[in-house]
């Protein structure tokens, strides 16, 4: 831990620096590869949709030692058409999933299962989803997604700057793509709980990005006033300075999500908790990656195209020294003496040595 803290200090001063911006092609390629894989998996395998989306019925019997064969036999006596999936959940539950059924058929399956396992009809956990229901929730999820992206983009454009909003959204779309791709690739069930997870990730992935961008904005606010570093260099320093923070916030966020996943998958076997936390877990991991490796380089690329930044880059390079790792003391000094930057404690002369 202490070692990590030490790294925090070195990263802050730029003594240790990882080149996030300069090697952007490498990160882009890695992401492009994943996105291609995702698209491939999506088009070849598609998502494994839960009955909430397809319509269907699910019956779960709580009975120690309930076997798949018995459940199949029971459903067969009820005479239900279509594909029937029977699986064990944990050691004392068996779940039967069927296509969409009418009320009489649902009752028949319940009765057959109740008789077979000698349990009451009321103790069977039942979920019946109409065929048109899935369309409805899919539509709502899509509306929610676009509504969210637009709102956040507007908000970030106001709170930060328009180009930061663009870069943040690029990162979010990247996260959604890869997360959905992982779901298609591995074949995890997609349920409404998964969709909630997806939508929540969007918020979370932005949290990390916001933290990084806040530092970038601070480092680059008065950048054109001096010729010390280019926009890309200042951005890279910001990413390095916030690296420990990004790592910590992500880890802290993953801890509770991981415990839901552990309990949800371990104790309950299946259901809301597992679906939700799995989506969150994967999404958080991807979101952390994109807030460091994708969002800042995209932002730097966008900003470097501005005439002022091109001129700055020329001035910086013209000096012959293009230090990727900027002297932090110099940066701090520039910030403190910048015109229009009259702020309380920040503006006070440094009292070094006073501890």
């Amino acid at each position: 831990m202490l070692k990590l803290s030490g790294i925090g200090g070195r990263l802050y001063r730029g003594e240790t620096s990882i080149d996030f911006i300069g090697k952007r092609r490498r990160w882009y390629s890695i992401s492009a590869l994943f996105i291609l894989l995702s698209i491939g998996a999506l088009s070849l395998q598609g998502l494994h949709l839960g009955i909430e989306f397809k319509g269907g019925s699910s019956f779960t019997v709580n009975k120690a030692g309930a076997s798949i064969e018995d459940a199949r036999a029971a459903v067969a006596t009820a005479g239900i058409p279509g594909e029937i999936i029977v699986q064990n959940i944990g050691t004392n539950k068996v779940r039967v999933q069927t296509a969409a059924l009418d009320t009489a058929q649902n009752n028949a399956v319940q009765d057959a299962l109740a008789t077979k396992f000698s349990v009451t009809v009321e103790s069977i956990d039942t979920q019946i989803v109409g065929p048109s229901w899935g369309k409805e929730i899919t539509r709502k999820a899509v509306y929610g997604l676009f509504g969210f992206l637009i709102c956040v983009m507007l908000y970030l454009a106001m709170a930060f700057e328009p180009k930061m909003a663009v870069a943040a959204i690029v990162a979010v779309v990247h996260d959604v793509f890869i997360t959905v791709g992982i779901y298609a690739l591995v074949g995890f069930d997609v349920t409404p709980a998964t969709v909630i997870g997806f939508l929540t990730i969007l918020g979370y992935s932005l949290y990390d990005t916001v933290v990084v961008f806040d530092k970038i904005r601070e480092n680059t606010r008065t950048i054109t006033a001096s010729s010390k570093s280019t926009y890309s260099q200042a951005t890279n320093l910001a990413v390095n300075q916030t690296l420990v923070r990004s790592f910590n916030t992500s880890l802290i966020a993953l801890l509770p999500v991981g415990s839901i996943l552990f309990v949800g998958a371990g104790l309950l076997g299946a259901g809301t908790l597992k679906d939700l936390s799995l989506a969150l877990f994967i999404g958080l991991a991807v979101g952390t990656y994109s807030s460091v490796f994708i969002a800042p380089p995209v932002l730097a690329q966008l900003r470097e195209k501005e005439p002022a930044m091109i001129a700055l880059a020329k001035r910086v390079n013209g000096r012959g020294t293009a230090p990727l790792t900027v002297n932090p003391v110099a940066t701090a000094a520039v910030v403190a003496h910048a015109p229009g930057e009259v702020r309380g404690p920040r503006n006070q002369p440094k009292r070094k040595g006073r501890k």
Partner: protein
Amino acid sequence: MSTTIKPVKTAGRPARSLAILALVLVAMLGLVFVQGATAVRLGLDLRGGTSVTLQPRIAPGESGKVTNEAIDQAVSIIRQRVNSLGVAESEVAAQGSGTNRQIVISVPGDTGRRVVELVGQTAELRFRQVLASSSALVAAGSAEVSAGSAATPANGVSAEVNAKFAALDCTKLANLQGTGTDAPTDTIAVCDRAGTTKYILAPAEVLGRQISKASAGIDTQGGNAWYVSLTFNGEGTTAFGALTTRVTTLAEPTNQVAIVLDGLVVSSPRITEPIPSGNAQITGSFTQLEAQDLANVLKYGALPLAFDRGEVQQISPTLGADQLNAGLIAGGLGLLLVFLYSLLYYRGLGLVTVGSLLVAGSFVYLLFLLLGKWIGFTLTLAGIAGAIVAIGVTADSFIVYFERIRDEIREGRTLRTAVESGWARARHTILVADFVSIIAAVLLYFFAVGGVRGFAFTLGLTTLVDLLVVFAFTKPLVTIVARLPFFASGHPLSGFSAKSTGTLPVTKEA
């Protein structure tokens, strides 16, 4: 584009801020006891029960006709049916907006199948002539109810219906459920909605869908009496004309026409003159509310709403208890891990995190209790998950702040000034990031149905609590703590040692 950070004033008065927060907590605790809200209301998925979500079935080209009033009317019809089960804490509510509104029915306990069958039927409105009526309180089998005297011989009521009428007890909930199974061609024995009167009614002569317009109005000349006016379409005008012409001259109660919705009598106005025009007015001692309710019933009759069962969920109490346990264990474990990590990484400062999380936790718990009482908030499994995820969001705010303080120290500040200047910067980051979380929660809430809403609600609520705690608890506490010699001197276990901030000895010189 506000890009400047406002200058921080001073350290403020941290002790006062903490005292106010403590007062608020105590006040909330008092409120909990005063209101008697001592247990969190649990959702059906945590205690067992049945929930059914109904979607209006909209015929092509008729989407404009599914109005909010029609849905509200359907909700009240279904509520009437569900209440007839007599299960406490049953709920029927509409969710969403416009034509996409859904009706969500939740009934705790083991009533599964009956609920599902009860709510699926389409309710229809019909006009039927009254053949006999009597107070519902008359004991079944008593001689005076024998319908023979009241029923018109022309319609000839069968002995079977008479017997049913005699036995009908409208004070029993089960007789007030209405199932939509009243065939228009039958002579029926039914109760009114309030359960105070019972009727024998002739076969339906006018149907609800033959109404073209209905509204409530006030007669300003006739002593400000509320009335309901309705207009029939072509078929309806003929049928209603014939019905009213026939019954006006008949004796009580056969000169009444009952308006029957979902097998229950809503109103049975006496017909005083033939109405061949197709425009009728129902007067009586209506209050404004009663008149509007009746008008809504008639409007609904014009387009009876059929529903599809979108989703039915039946959860046994065993599974409910399991899910509750799992949620609580996951929450406890998550909290513990976050505590451990903060203490390991931030040392003494980690205690501030632990304290802040505990304060935030108590706030959230008290809010759950109070909101359960005030707005019927129920905690679902998805809601618990939202709260657990929020532990991370809340802890993130602290990390952002703590790392900021370390940054400031690396720039050569003393702990006491770093705490203030770091706050000025961290504050902005925390506000922006939390606001993004709130946008996510609000959108999720409005775009989603069922469990998702529970998740969005707790996520939004806990994010707001996070803001409150960071501003009113964590920051003041850090200010106080920074004055303690243990922290200010950079003790190895304080989390502010030169080693943990990575401050070079160089900065100590000069």
